[in-house]
């Protein structure tokens, strides 16, 4: 589809038609509300999704659409747009070295001095379709020698309501399961048909899935006392300031000595002086200091 546009002829091309000023206003709005930061290079990507949503709601002008996003009390349209703008790609046992690190070293450190039976809280922030939290669950059950001594709570959240619904359902296709050993698939999944497997109910029920925007301080306030936070492959879509803010909110959510795991291409050094990088044999994690 195409939209009415006030662009000059030099500006043509196959983008849907946000003027430079509208594009700026739009990106600023998204940055404030979601932490997601889109540069000029992403213009085509943003344009397409915005014009799609504008067509769906029957709005003609970008300004009108922006107002709808701003002032709609239910926030429904913003959610729908966010669902289209996020990149949800993930799979089981992604960046396995961090899961290795978790069960080989980090968790032992987390529980040091804690009496048996106490709680351990692990949070997958930006869990997409659920592969990450389920991978954590399976890794703990299979490979952490002290798993039975503690009560482990797993939290998982995402800003995208559609992927969360799929995470709760726990149905996966071959592509998601590729990195997972066959025997574990057999042990934890039920085969539904040729294409799909569903993760067992006990695991589905053990994880609390919730809709959380990690750029929103009010929502983040509900998360406290976490021992390990996985926040992998989403801060790459944030700008420097967004990363700094996220770091400081994660700091509040963690218990002293708690760890944060970032994706391999993300480094905390540019982002914050709050955490201490800890080099383990399997991976580098960031730790909240004792006090």
């Amino acid at each position, binding site marked *: 589809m195409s939209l009415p546009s006030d662009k000059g002829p030099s500006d043509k091309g196959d983008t849907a038609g946000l003027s430079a000023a509208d594009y700026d206003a739009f990106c600023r709005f998204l940055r404030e509300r979601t932490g997601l930061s889109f540069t000029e290079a992403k213009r085509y990507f943003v344009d397409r999704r915005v014009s799609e949503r504008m067509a769906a709601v029957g709005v003609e002008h970008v300004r009108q659409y922006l107002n709808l996003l701003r002032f709609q009390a239910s926030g429904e349209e913003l959610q729908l747009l966010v669902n289209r703008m996020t990149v949800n790609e993930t799979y089981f046992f992604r960046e396995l070295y961090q899961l290795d690190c978790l069960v080989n070293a980090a968790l032992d450190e987390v529980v040091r001095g804690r009496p048996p039976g106490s709680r351990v809280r692990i949070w997958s922030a930006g869990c997409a379709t659920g592969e990450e939290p389920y991978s954590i669950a399976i890794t703990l059950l299979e490979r952490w020698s002290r798993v*039975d001594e503690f009560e*482990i709570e797993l939290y998982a959240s995402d800003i995208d309501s559609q992927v969360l619904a799929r995470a709760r359902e726990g149905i996966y296709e071959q592509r998601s399961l590729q990195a997972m050993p066959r025997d574990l698939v057999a042990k934890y999944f039920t085969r539904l048909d040729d294409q799909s497997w569903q993760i067992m109910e*006990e695991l589905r029920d053990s994880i609390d899935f*919730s809709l959380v925007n990690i750029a929103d301080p*009010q929502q983040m306030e*509900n998360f406290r006392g976490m021992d390990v936070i996985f926040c992998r492959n989403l801060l790459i879509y944030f700008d420097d300031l967004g990363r700094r803010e996220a770091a*400081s909110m994660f700091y509040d959510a963690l218990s002293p000595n708690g760890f944060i795991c970032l994706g391999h291409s993300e480094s905390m050094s540019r982002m914050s002086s709050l955490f201490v990088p800890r080099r383990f044999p399997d991976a580098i994690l960031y730790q909240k200091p004792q006090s």
Partner: protein
Amino acid sequence: MALVKARKIDGAKPAGAAEGGDPLAWLEDADPARRRQAAHALGDRPDAVPALSARLTREEDPSVRETLLTALVRIGTAAAAAALVPHLASEDVGLRNGVIESLQQMPAAVAMPEVAPLLTAADSDLRIFAAQLIGKLPHPDRLDLLAGVIDRDPHVNVCLSAVEALMEGGDPAALPVVERLSGRFPDDPFVAFSVDAARRLFSGA
């Protein structure tokens, strides 16, 4: 099984909102978590700049300090940038570094007018910070300001930080400026070395 059902966390329900009151008042709370919370909440309040800056002077908890800095960057006004600048003279290296990084993350149009005057500060350390910072601000005056340092600053170390800043920027127009430094300090081996390095960089060799 060792996994227990996690208690429901309702992300939609704000936890602290019930406590009410003005976050400005919590900035001086004894509990660092509360002070962090205040700083978070003040990140969109330009009127909070003086209070944030005053707290920054006294704040000893590194995590609260980081949040105060982040709030000032987020506010992003000229007043917020101006409030950061005096902390560049702090004895505390951590604070200084935090301030440099923060000014760098502000819009260049806002940060530059606050930072540029530091190029004439009496303290050569301050001039060095200013040169480093200016090198990182995408601003049209960048080259001219750094050229001014190279042509006029009496202190060779300040000039060398300007050279470094220009090299980081990678603009070939900077080369003739850098070369002028050899004329000012003909006997300084480090100047000779830096100018050489700049030539290699800009000629792509």
